[in-house]
């Protein structure tokens, strides 16, 4: 694993930019989850943070690791993406059925 000092300036800027973008997505998602009025918009906020935020954090971290660790991180991202989508869909359906039968 190489240190940040060994990276070129260009890759350092790109990876920092990606990491900061990911963090901004996470912050926006958390604020949305706390502030939005109903379950559907909250789900919307959280899944954006999950998929895009985690994706760009992982893309930013990829500059620091070797190919094996990168592959593992990519797999983790795909798993989180899929399970996040499934659980979001399930939660939304649950909220819908609860809304329909008061």
């Amino acid at each position, binding site marked *: 694993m190489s240190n940040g000092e060994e990276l070129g300036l260009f890759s350092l800027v790109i990876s920092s930019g990606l990491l900061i973008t990911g963090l901004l997505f996470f912050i926006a998602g958390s604020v949305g989850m706390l502030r939005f009025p109903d379950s559907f918009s909250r789900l919307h906020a959280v899944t954006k943070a999950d998929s895009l935020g985690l994706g760009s954090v992982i893309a930013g971290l990829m500059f620091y690791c070797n190919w094996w660790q990168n592959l593992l991180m990519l797999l983790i991202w795909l798993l989180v993406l*899929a*399970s996040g989508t*499934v659980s979001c*869909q*399930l939660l939304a*359906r649950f909220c819908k059925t609860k809304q329909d039968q008061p």
Partner: protein
Amino acid sequence: MSLLLFDILLCGLLLALALASMLSRQLSHAVILYIAFGLLMALCWARLAAPDLALAEAAIGAGLTGALCFTALARQGQLALSPVLSWQQRCWPALFVVVTFCGLLLALLQLPAQPGPLPALVVQNLTASGVSHPVTAVLLNYRSWDTLLELLVLLLALIGTLQISPAAVLHRSWGLSRSWSRLLAPLIILLAGYLLWAGASQPGGAFQAGALLAAGAVVLKLNQQLDWLAWRNIWVRFFAVAGLTVFTLSVLTVFFLAEAGSEPLWLRWPPELAKYIILLIEVFATLAIAIILTLLVVAEQPQTALSLARADKTEDIDG
């Protein structure tokens, strides 16, 4: 410096989640906050150089406990807000807790900063234990007594739960979650097998593999898969008890066969055979732990005379 910042953030989050879980007025919020707390605990174990615990906690704290608590919530039915406690009702317990906390902290700060002789002993005798991962060596060789009794405790908890738990409230599952759980199943089996095998030399072992398998099986059971995984199945009963039985049998075998040599000792493996005995016990312990934990979380009433007599009443109450 950045690590200290991470530590402060982690500890602060843990404390905030625990406090919010205890003080929130809605029980469902308390349970959800507690599940988030369990996830952060796994991170905390990883930070404190305990990867074995992090693996187990990720499957247990975040997976199984969550399913348990949500089942309990669903059984409570329609929930009212918790009653507001008066000033005095809050103040006196808080005072008591603060006094206890100060005493606890004082006592903890008296502890010596140097560890006892045990870690050095574990590392010294690692070659004779049959495995090269110290935690597995402690669990299945030096202190295998603990593991044996733990399997017994698990079995007792399962028997007790099967006796008293009311019939499970099963809901129809959606096709999406069913197919997703089916997709996850081979991945979980692969990971559990890897964890079990890696336990000899790396973090991993019977407990983590069993907990992971149980978490996967619970997801499948909640989606109405794995119909055979119930207490009525004789093979399930066999494997639930087999962990304890194989352990006891191997202890007895070693005890009686070792009589020719030096003085026989309880729960002491001969170094040249230790590797195989530990592997045998671990395989059966993994299956037993997985089955018992699964049945503990999605407990199904066995069809006894008592439960059949109770069935009609349950239906009425559940509406």
